[in-house]
């Protein structure tokens, strides 16, 4: 049990000093099965499970209970069941190890499944080899903290998500470690929630999959080596801050995929070694500030369907291409970014280059039309063509231009 777990316990004990009863499962004097203890307990009680392995199929908790593992008891689903099903209100689950939930293409079997619940706190559990790890539907006031979740990456179809939220409100997903699932964290119809400081690594599809979820915030997360990076789609008013998007490689892999996102803020994130840092489609009124893009194939790919976005004070360095776009009409504002490819001068000594920078090179337009020409990358011919195009722009979008490129990187 972690220190924080202990405090939660202590506070709970103080909240219900008289009425709360402790039931112990396992050990010398405890109940033989968890099901028995859960059956006996009433609202506000605590069920404490001692170390050991428990194979009791599906366990249902539908009253406000504190369900605690001491010495990391193992709940084994034997590849058949949902292991824990929570429903109702105010349930705490801590300190367990859950393994081998059932796998089904029909039902979303999970290690911990929460349905129709208000107030659920899932902390400090280890979940391994499960279909879904933590599955929440129609829930609110949620805390999922400090769980370590490790799936077995099979194909996208028979692997579930790590932390899955559907139709939820007021969730805090914090400091979890998720790997080997389909999507590390999945949000659909979730509002007023925060995703903080999680690490989502090596998941088959997205590190974070985020849809139809407004007024949310995610920050300080690390998304590493996921099949297709992070997808944020069909949402409004999302704040994405101080996240790291690393090593998302593939022809449909992005650090961050934005599809139909409006009025959102992307700030102080790191995009490193991604095939595409940010891919934007149908997104508008975004503020993209103080981010660092380095060593990506394309730092940003902005489709023509995007407008009114502000891309300012970002650092672009060591990317193969800075910006790519599929159209010529560009209605986004690039201002005061640092571009390492900029070779202008600053005679006015105001820290900003005196000639504008065009972040879309002619060659990137060529590659856009014919991806095989990527084989000519860094050839002398290409650098000649790019230089010529810079002198007399003809096929690169005229308005995609940073008129005040910074001479030195922004300190973030």
């Amino acid at each position, binding site marked *: 049990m972690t220190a924080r777990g202990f405090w939660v316990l202590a506070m709970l004990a103080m909240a219900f000093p008289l009425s709360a009863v402790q039931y112990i499962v396992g050990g010398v004097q405890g109940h033989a099965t968890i099901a028995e203890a859960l059956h006996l307990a009433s609202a506000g009680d605590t069920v404490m499970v001692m170390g050991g392995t428990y194979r009791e199929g599906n366990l249902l908790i539908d009253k406000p209970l504190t369900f605690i593992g001491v010495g990391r008891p193992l709940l084994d689903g034997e590849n058949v069941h949902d292991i824990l099903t929570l429903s109702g209100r105010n349930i705490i689950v801590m300190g367990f190890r859950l393994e081998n939930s059932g796998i089904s293409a029909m039902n979303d079997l999970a290690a911990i499944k929460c349905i129709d619940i208000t107030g659920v706190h899932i902390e400090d559990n280890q979940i391994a080899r499960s279909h879904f790890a933590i599955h929440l539907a129609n829930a609110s006031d949620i805390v999922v903290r400090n769980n370590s979740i490790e799936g077995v990456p099979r194909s996208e179809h028979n692997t579930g998500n790590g932390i899955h939220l559907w139709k939820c409100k007021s969730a805090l997903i914090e400091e979890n470690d998720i790997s080997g699932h389909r999507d590390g964290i999945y949000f659909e119809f979730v509002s007023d929630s925060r995703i903080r400081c999680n690490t989502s690594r090596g998941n088959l599809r997205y590190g974070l999959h985020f849809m139809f979820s407004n007024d949310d915030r995610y920050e300080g997360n690390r998304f590493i080596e996921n099949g297709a990076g992070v997808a944020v789609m069909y949402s409004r008013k999302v704040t994405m801050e101080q996240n790291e998007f690393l090593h998302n*490689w*593939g*022809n449909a*892999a992005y650090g961050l995929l934005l599809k139909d996102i409006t009025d959102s803020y992307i700030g102080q994130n790191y995009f490193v*070694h*991604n*095939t*595409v840092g940010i891919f934007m489609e149908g997104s508008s009124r975004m503020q993209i500030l103080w981010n660092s893009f380095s*060593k*990506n*194939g*394309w730092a940003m790919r902005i489709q023509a369907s995007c407008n009114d976005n502000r891309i300012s004070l970002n650092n672009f*360095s*060591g*990317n*193969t*291409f800075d910006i790519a776009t599929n159209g010529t009409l560009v209605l986004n504002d690039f201002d005061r970014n640092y571009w*390492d490819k900029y070779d202008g001068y600053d005679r006015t000594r105001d820290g900003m280059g005196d000639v504008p920078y065009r972040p879309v090179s002619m060659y990137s337009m*060529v590659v856009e*039309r*014919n*991806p*095989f*020409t*990527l*084989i*000519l*990358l*860094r*050839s*002398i*011919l*290409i*650098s*000649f063509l790019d230089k010529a195009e810079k002198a007399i722009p003809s096929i690169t979008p005229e308005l995609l231009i940073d008129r005040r490129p910074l001479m030195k990187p922004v300190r973030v």
Partner: protein
Amino acid sequence: MTAMWTLTRYIFSDIIRNKVIVLYAGFQLLAALLLFNLEENPDKALLSLLNIELIVIPLISMIFSTIHYYNSYEFIEMLLAQPLGRRQVFLSEFLACALSLVLAFVVGLGIPVLVHFQDLLAFNFLLTGTLLTFACTAIAFCAAVLARDKARGIGIVLLLWFYFALVYDGIVLMILFTFSDYPLERLTLLLTALNPIDLTRVSMMLRMDVSALMGYTGALFKEFFGSYRGILYTGGILLLWTILPLIMSLRIFRNKDL
């Protein structure tokens, strides 16, 4: 064999005292020092050095080798009047010439790069630069054996350089656009193999621009670029670019009237 190595050693120690070789090494060293000192980001400096590798190395290697061959004509004659085989003499001249150019490259660019980078990228830079020097020397010797007089030999070599460094990529670009409706994976790989400069460039690209290359749609490419096979492939073909021109020039040289 011992005669060949002895001869190589003597010719090598002559060439490395040559003003052009010393200047060539000095130029590279100067460029490397300037770039690494002026550029805050060593990655960017390496990119500029890559351009030197792709333009200057082939140009100097080819022209120097051609001139060296013609200037050594009488000496080669004198050597062939000794009990020495033509292959021994020719290979000694080739080896001595290629090795001194490689030495200039290693001193001029190699060491500064190794000071700033100790990774696979630096290793690849050195390896391909060395192999490219060998290939260009072999091509130049082949041209020199084919053309009887010096002016024509240098002319051929300059044209070859221009072709490999610039024209070829233009042709590739045209081919890729003309046949853009067809699957071009294999063709593209084949096309890079037919130009030693492109091969060098691609093998460096494999290390520097992995992120972008992983965006390639073709499965073949991904497998190829994502693994060590890419390095083996480029290294192997560059070696072929040395061996094949050498075999061809040896065939001509063996029956040539001097």
